[in-house]
């Protein structure tokens, strides 16, 4: 337990990327979806309907390492607004990130997005809270018909919530590609760097079948882990379930649903 990579504890600042991305072992920098506010706000621009979503992820079956998230979004004024919140931890210690994102399509195959993020470190038993504002920017660019590139930068100003060194929010930088083999099958690969931990290479593949189902699998180099999951899509509802698995630390189940109005 004591050998846990430090990065695992501060992952609350990454927000929640949703069970679909987690089942692919990626953050989703080159995917577009309802959780894009946290993974790459540019991805929100591809959403055409208002939505509301919930997601929960548990790390290594420890109650203290639970990540919860909520997100709502609305296409308005030629772009898409999204408002999301995430909570990682418990009542004694938690990392919370609240994200207001705006994304817009700017070219035939080019989207960009920006978010304003409020990070809150909350400690119980009278230690108090500390919060700070930062931002994120991202883009999605079609390099050709089948290949999409996503890039995301979060917190380049590297804010510190209090004088305490532990309260520095890491910079996140991600670069990813999504390749569509067919309209049903695509793969994604990304490189993610968190200024506090090692760079990771993550890749995943998703196959959509039987009209309503999505099957997903992925691997990540840091921490060395893999993941899998299934999605079920109805007309208004998306329901995703999956699990990440770390050989030493164990299972990280996740579940979520999205309702489209």
């Amino acid at each position, binding site marked *: 337990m004591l050998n846990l990579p430090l990065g695992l504890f501060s992952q609350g600042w990454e927000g929640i990327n949703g069970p679909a991305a987690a089942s692919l072992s990626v953050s989703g920098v080159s995917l577009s979806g309802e959780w894009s506010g946290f993974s790459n706000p540019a991805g929100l621009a591809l959403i055409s309907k208002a939505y509301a979503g919930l997601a929960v992820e548990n790390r290594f079956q420890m109650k203290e390492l639970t990540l919860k998230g909520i997100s709502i979004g609305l296409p308005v004024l030629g772009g898409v607004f999204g408002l999301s919140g995430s909570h990682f931890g418990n009542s004694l210690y938690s990392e919370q990130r609240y994200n207001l994102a705006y994304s817009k399509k*700017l*070219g035939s*195959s*080019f989207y960009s997005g920006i978010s304003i993020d409020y990070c809150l470190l909350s400690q119980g038993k009278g230690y108090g809270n500390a919060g700070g504002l930062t931002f994120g920017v991202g*883009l999605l*660019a*079609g*390099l*050709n018909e089948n*290949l999409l*590139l996503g*890039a995301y*930068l979060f917190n*380049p100003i*590297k804010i510190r919530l209090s004088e305490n060194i532990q309260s520095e929010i890491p*910079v996140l*930088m991600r*670069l990813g590609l999504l390749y569509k083999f067919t309209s049903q099958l695509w793969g994604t690969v990304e*490189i993610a*760097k968190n*200024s506090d931990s*090692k*760079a990771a290479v993550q890749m995943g593949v998703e196959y959509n079948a039987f009209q309503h189902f999505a099957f997903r699998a992925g691997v990540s180099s840091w921490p060395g882990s893999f993941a899998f999951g299934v999605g079920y899509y109805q007309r208004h509802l998306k329901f995703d379930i999956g699990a990440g698995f770390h050989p030493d630390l164990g299972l990280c189940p996740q579940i979520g649903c999205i309702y489209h109005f």
Partner: protein
Amino acid sequence: MLMAQQPDTLMKNLEYQIEWYVENTENELDYSELTEELEQLSKNRVNLNSRERDELKRLFFLNEAQIQGILAYTANYGDFVSIYELKAIPNFDSTLIRKIIPFVTISPYEKQHLKMSEALKQGEHSILLRYQRILEKQEGYLPADDSLLEVKPNARYLGSPDKILVKYGYNYKSQIRWGLLAEKDAGEEFFSGTQKQGFDFYSAYIYGRDLGKVHRFVLGDYHATFGQGLVMWSGLSFGKAGITGGMPHTARGLTPSSSSNEIYYLRGGGMTIGLGNFEISTFASHIALDAGIAALDTLQTNEIIEGLRNTGLHRTPSEVALSKNIHLTTLAGNINYTGDIFRAGFTIASENFDKAFDYRTGLYNLFQQPRKSQLTMGADASVYLRDFVLQGEIARDIDGHLAGIFNVNFQPDPRLTLALIYRNYDKAFQNYHSNAFSENSGVYNEKGLYLGFKASLAKQVELSGYADYFRFPWFKYRVDGPSKGREYYLRMDFLLGKNAHAYLRYRFEQKEINISDEDRKLNFLFPKKFHNVRMHFDYQPLVEWKFASRAEASFNHPNAVDSRMGFLIYQDITWKPTRLPISITGRYALFDTDSYDERLYAYEQDLLYSFSVPAYYYKGQKFILVLKYSLNKSLNFWLRFASSIYSDRDEIGTGLEMIHGNSRSEIKGQLIWKF
């Protein structure tokens, strides 16, 4: 729009080459000459129908075989009507054709006669002013007590941290050129104290080309490059970077030196006369260099360096004391014959220092004790046979030591080029102005075989790579014994639609270095392994917006136990509005390396004519912002701000360069006025 983008292709290529060059040699030089030349070239394009080899040679990124191919084509089939006819010439693929389009024209060929009165009046003048400074206070600029300076006079720099460059140039169709340059480096005094003459470095030249029988003449500061560089190559050469799947860069004879590099130039004059198929060049140079035995800029007095110094920096009393205390006189000549399928040349150079060297060095330098006088001669030849190009040069120094290089370039199909380069440089070969293909930094103590290729796998996919095997017959610095090594390189380029380009590359290097072991008295050699992977994307999804993304990692295995890693990721954005006379470009980078050895080099956006390819190392982030404002066509301004913030240290740099803090920021400004 498409046309407007194209000069970028070559610029990009140049960026890659310079990036690679720096990565391989760790030399930070002034590459402005290359950018200037490309710019001149796009203004005064080369007429492909010219029957003059010299005119075509202005396309300096082409090799001899390609130039020969163009000449043979026009000789056999008459004038080019379309540039795409180039596809019919061996050695020209569509990538290369795309590259050269911005620099060539096609018009009926007629021999032009230079009118002196026109040449002196109708050219273009340009003035460049550049200023730069590190914003944080470095150790060398901190206030110091007189008592400290009395004991340690070299504990502070004499001058201010400002760096100033002033440059003036005149150019008439690249045929008549002259220029002046003055530079003050950071830390040097300015119009005071040790620099009563103002700037620390001055340079000037007058250059002419294609003046009847006089093919070239130069007076002032210049470069001379002949053959394959074993005897004389005073300018830049890109080594391995310049030749993936191709051939070494073409020697260009005498060219002016307009850069602020305070080394690697010749000062004096030279001339090339053409007599039928023969060209005869003679040139002379007398330069003052820095040398001596002294404590350098560090605070420790025991750090003694002997021999030639080539930094060009004169910031402390001891550096100033070493200034220009040795002189090198060079007398050299070249004669060469150029036929349709054959070319041969002979180069001779005599180099004389006015003082003898007294070297105290390690065993590794046993065969490289600098001589007071050198006389080196070399013969080179090239043969162009259908799909083959064969080239070679062999040189002999005053003591009879030999150095030789031989290469074959074979293009069995327009989509495939193969190259082989063999070099064998004696451990004792010694010549001051050698600069040829090598793994070592100098042309000596090396044997090696390089095999390279470049293949167009599909319309949009190009694969290139090489394998290089080398041996060093004698000791090297930190290598106590004969050693060997190898390097592999593979790069895949993807053209993704009209506005996106990506490449993936992998490099592996293994070299033997000393390892000390407590149980043994002697060092022994260990094959140190180094891997590097990079992916890079350039894309322009909108007319006014350009982006570049890169992620790169290096893995270093310096000994049997350790494994260290370096990582760099960056995002570049350029906004060039079509309606406003400005452009803005920026970068955000995150880097994280375990030590300096895993450093990663990356080209950075900079002012025009200023190239920077710094190493990213340790842990931190870097911002860059460059603004360009064009008042009108002839007056342009640039402003650049760059700042690195480190998260794993609170001191940056060493010695007098040290910053007591965790950030290092630099500001640069530039003005270019053309009239």
